[in-house]
């Protein structure tokens, strides 16, 4: 529609105002993130030292380092990956490449969507019931990793499925016409092409697992351990839970250590995020379609 009687100048001003408003709104989403990061760096950086990163807590957590929590979070993230990555990618391949569109697969899809919406503390209780008590894993890295895996699965499945579906169908037709079986087509064409998207989903899922407190609260997190866990059946300290403990449960806690722990956790998650972005951009540059 052409508006009559509006001079080009006014149109330009209106347009600039509109763009300006949109720009302002998008920058406003950046501001809180920046403030949080700067705030935590400012308050936490003084705590960071070799002793803090490599030492055990001392003086009832009021001093010393957070090594067991760092190691514990690494263990839990790794354990979560071991269970959720093969299962998640396998499910995504099945759903996108093999599953017929019928009532059963619709039920599976609805289940996955709903799984993603369940509050994490519910996963914690579920893990307590199934892994800790029923399967007798006790409060352990194993039970916590399994609980985190179930929480992470929907993220991995849905992002992987999306990445797999984004591969043009013409590749599948051509590959089939050249005598490839369905699995050969998946392995040689579909998976290599969707791998960047899958990895991004995996890392985002694991990142969430690394930062969660509620699911490990009853399943594997320890308040304090004098030594590092020796087996998957040991309980472990973990960064998010440790942060929760020292922020709420320990009176007279030096604020420096709290923010130092938050900074380490933030850094951990940030590194994973950066890895995901690098994988994505490198794959995009190498993409052959």
């Amino acid at each position, binding site marked *: 529609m052409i508006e009559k009687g509006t001079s080009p100048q006014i149109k330009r001003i209106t347009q600039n105002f509109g763009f300006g408003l949109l720009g302002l709104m998008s920058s406003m989403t950046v501001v809180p993130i920046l403030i949080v990061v700067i705030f935590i760096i400012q308050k936490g950086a003084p705590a960071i030292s070799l002793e803090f990163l490599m030492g055990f807590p001392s003086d009832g957590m009021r001093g010393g380092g957070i090594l067991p929590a760092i190691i514990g979070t690494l263990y839990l993230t790794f354990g979560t990956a071991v269970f959720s990555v093969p299962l998640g990618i396998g499910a995504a391949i099945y759903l996108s490449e093999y599953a017929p569109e019928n009532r059963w697969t619709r039920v599976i899809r609805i289940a996955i969507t709903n799984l993603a919406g369940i509050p994490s503390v519910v996963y914690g209780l579920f893990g307590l019931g199934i892994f800790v008590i029923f399967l007798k894993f006790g409060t352990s890295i194993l039970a916590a990793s399994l609980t985190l895996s179930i929480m992470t699965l929907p993220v991995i499945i849905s992002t992987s499925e999306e990445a797999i579906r984004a591969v043009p169908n*013409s590749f599948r037709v*051509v590959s089939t016409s*050249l*005598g490839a079986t369905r699995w050969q087509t998946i392995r*040689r064409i579909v998976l290599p092409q969707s791998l960047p998207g899958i990895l991004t989903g995996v890392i985002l899922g694991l990142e969430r697992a690394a930062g969660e407190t509620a699911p490990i609260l009853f399943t594997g997190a320890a308040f304090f351990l004098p030594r590092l866990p020796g087996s998957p059946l040991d309980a472990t300290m973990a960064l998010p839970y440790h942060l929760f403990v020292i922020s709420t449960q320990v009176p007279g806690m030096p604020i420096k250590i709290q923010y130092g722990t938050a900074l380490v956790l933030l850094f951990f998650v940030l590194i994973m995020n950066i890895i995901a972005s690098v994988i994505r951009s490198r794959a995009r540059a190498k*993409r052959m379609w």
Partner: protein
Amino acid sequence: MNIIEVDHFSLSYSDGTESLKDITLSIPHNKITVMLGPAGGGKSTLMRAMNRLNDLADVTFVSGKITVDGLDVMDPKTNVVELRRKVGMVFARPVPLPLTIRQNITYGLEVAGEQDKKKMDEVVEQTLRDAVLWDEVKDRLDDPGVAISGGQQQRLCLARVLALDPKVILLDEPTSGLDPISTAKIEDSLQELKKRYTIILAPHSVQQASRTADFAAFFLQGELIETAPDKDLFTRPKDKRTQDYVEGRFG
């Protein structure tokens, strides 16, 4: 001698878009058979039935029989992978696989279990020569398949079908998106290739059909209207509808 026998073959898709109605047709060995007719006539469907690519689509009803080189195509016991190697296909739009030029050609061999690198290098050169592409890409075999022009991509697609050493090559409007020079190159290579392969072509125009045909079949709305050897279909059509189509009155 006929390499493909289509015997009272019918097929329909679940959405009812395009179907084949009781097609009976013999395709001669080492000739260019042209299947022409307006869009939606069933040419693509019949081609995709010959190498069971229809398995990927939603087919609801099939009856009748197709044999390719003695192989019963619709028989559930037929090894489809073997069938597809026998009946190669070039599509309307060139789709290089997301691999290098070289890998696009060796793909069919590799999925068949070939490991001899030297043999594959020979196949790459030979098939690219047969597809009249070698001189243009010999120095950039490890570039992505999409890095070359559309006309070159389509010849690459032809070369990778040749690498399978098929009996039959199906070409579904292979030049529809190409410039006249690339089209001429493909038509020229077909004249060479028919000495070794049976070629079935859905042409993108009546002119292309009459230029290339050794045997022609006219399809209209899922029915086979008439067939004729050589250029007879274009010079002496028997059916009024065929005549109208080749003279450009519809389609």
